[in-house]
């Protein structure tokens, strides 16, 4: 008969109390497992959206652009865009690079002014870079054209052709148009003048980010360059790295290559250094860890309570065991082991249930569309929890640890009782 076996049997003595302890721990553990899985899912989602559609993994811009970013200073551009992209692509550790020009313009319909976000892209490169095939919901991605829209020269009287664009599904709703229809956008140019261009809806995209979906469209870079008078220039060059690449090293290397390709003074930043809502994720992780700890401590109070009750009820038994020659430490170990078993059972149960729910949700997703209405973050409206070592193993270990540690409070008090006092009661 060893302590562990006795401890194990003892938790069956008061079923109701043990179930209470186990349930409290299980509920806390399950909640935290799911919370962390959700958070992992959000982090992944945000990272994907940011790197695909906003910052890439490394973003190269004119170094003055960020200072005046809110004014949309197109003229603060990157010269020699093509050469810069090629230089970045050729850098070791870079998987893909794309040039982009983004800006805001307006479509005038009846007496409505509809603000839209345009992005000039190299569609061929974007297939690789941001996997746009995945978000196309209708029509197709424009094939690279031989030359941009607009008259080819003074003698060309054919008039401008429509520029094919991939348009966010929400934009089409707002404009009340569909595949094959056209719209005309007016915008400021890099020369701080004005220009307009007509687009044809060649493809419909479901951008994962609602802001892009409702206001964004992509058009071929050469046409956009013409629209905003930025021939040969780009607003930014974005890069993605090979899996497992050393971020620091590759960022430095491609910065070097880029600077050789263009005379524009550049700002080159790894995406996590750019201030985006992603930093909230990292903050959220800290906050959730604290919340998780609080949950476990709360569950721990249940364990403290049940342990105290057990000790109280078994005082005579404690006295007997000590009379038989069990040292106070050994008695403490006995009760501690019982609490540990309960904590393990509870955490284990919570883990299993939490993982089951998180798995199901990771497939079906949780639809936050209503909740996120009006929220302008780069998070998709449907989120998929992700089960990770952190959200499972670490959480469970923490749960058990807190449960075990909290049980030490009542149990170590046993050492202060004289055997005769313990035997005296009743």
């Amino acid at each position: 008969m060893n302590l562990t076996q006795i401890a194990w049997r003892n938790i069956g003595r008061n079923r109701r109390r043990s179930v209470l302890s186990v349930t409290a721990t299980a509920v806390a553990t399950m909640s935290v497992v799911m919370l962390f899985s959700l958070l992992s899912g959000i982090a992944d989602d945000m990272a994907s959206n940011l790197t695909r559609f906003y910052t890439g993994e490394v973003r190269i811009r004119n170094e003055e652009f960020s200072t005046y970013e809110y004014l949309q200073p197109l003229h603060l551009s990157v010269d020699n865009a093509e050469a810069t992209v090629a230089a970045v692509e050729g850098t070791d550790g870079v998987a893909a690079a794309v040039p982009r020009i983004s800006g805001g313009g307006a479509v005038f319909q009846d007496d409505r002014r509809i603000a839209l976000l345009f992005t000039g892209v190299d569609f061929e490169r974007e297939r690789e870079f941001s996997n746009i095939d995945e978000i196309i919901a209708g029509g197709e991605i424009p094939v690279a054209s031989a030359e941009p829209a607009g008259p080819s020269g003074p003698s060309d009287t054919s008039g401008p052709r429509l520029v094919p664009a991939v348009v966010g599904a929400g934009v089409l709703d707002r404009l009340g148009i569909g595949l094959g229809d056209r719209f005309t956008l007016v915008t400021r140019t890099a020369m701080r003048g004005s220009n307009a261009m007509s687009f044809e809806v060649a493809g419909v995209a479901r951008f994962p980010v609602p802001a892009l979906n409702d206001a964004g469209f992509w058009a071929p870079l050469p046409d956009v360059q013409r629209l905003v008078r930025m021939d040969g220039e780009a607003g930014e060059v974005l890069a993605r790295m090979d899996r497992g690449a050393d971020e620091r090293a590759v960022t430095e290397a491609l910065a070097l290559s880029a600077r050789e390709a263009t005379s524009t003074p550049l700002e080159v930043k790894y995406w996590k250094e750019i201030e985006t809502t992603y930093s909230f994720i990292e903050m959220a992780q800290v906050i959730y860890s604290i919340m998780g700890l609080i949950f476990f401590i709360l569950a721990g109070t249940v364990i403290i309570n049940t342990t105290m009750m057990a000790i109280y009820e078994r005082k005579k038994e404690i006295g007997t065991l000590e009379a038989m020659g069990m040292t106070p430490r050994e008695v403490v170990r006995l009760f501690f082991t019982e609490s540990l078993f309960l904590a393990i059972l509870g955490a284990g149960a919570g883990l299993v249930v939490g993982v089951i729910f998180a798995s199901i949700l990771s497939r079906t997703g949780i639809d936050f569309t209503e909740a996120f209405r009006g929220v302008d973050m780069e998070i998709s409206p449907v989120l998929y929890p992700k089960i990770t070592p952190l959200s499972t193993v670490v959480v469970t270990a923490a749960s058990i640890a807190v449960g075990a540690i909290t049980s030490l409070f009542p149990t170590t008090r046993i050492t202060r009782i004289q055997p005769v006092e313990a035997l005296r009661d009743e």
Partner: protein
Amino acid sequence: MITITNLVRTYQTGDNEVRALRNIDLAIATGEFAAIAGPSGSGKTTLLNLIGCIDEPDEGTIEINGSVVHAGKAKERALFRRENLGFVFQSFNLVPVLTAEENIALSLSLLDMPAAERRERLRAIIDEVGLTGMEDRRPARLSGGQQQRVAVARALVKDPKLVLADEPTANLDSETGAAILDLMHELNQSHKTTFVFSTHDPMVMDRADRLITLRDGRIVDDDLRRRAS
């Protein structure tokens, strides 16, 4: 084997001070089958507890086989009890989740010994106390007398030098009580274990080889009827 000198024990109960034992001097020889008797409040249980070093005296000394055990720390006392003492309680005090055999084995498990020897001892003691066939029952399924047999077996299986029994027959009917008493007396004879009881049961007082009477914390009579052999 037990030498008690000038033992004093006082309790605080609320505002009152209770002098449980006043300057007790006592010596008990090895192998004695002694009873400490007296009305309730006389201090007999207190004396037993002090001998069993589950309580600490305020003044005086208790020597068991030359060791002044109460002077040590809780752990040392526990170890001393482990190796040298056995207890039998009025209300049996068995662990409810363990079977009879497991309860007995529990006291053995605290000691270091090869598994074979353990098994041997268990079998022997179960037999001696007459519990063969019932060793797999939990206390809930044992009668009072059977439970007390388990308790006795538990106390004796480790072959202690001294067994302290606090009113062991109080919760048993007279027939069963007598049987238990007989059992303990047999074991006292066969194992040469010293037995000290506290009791107010006349039957026990009768069977004791030596009867020490306490009143108000003092020894008022010490009657040695039969020498220990």
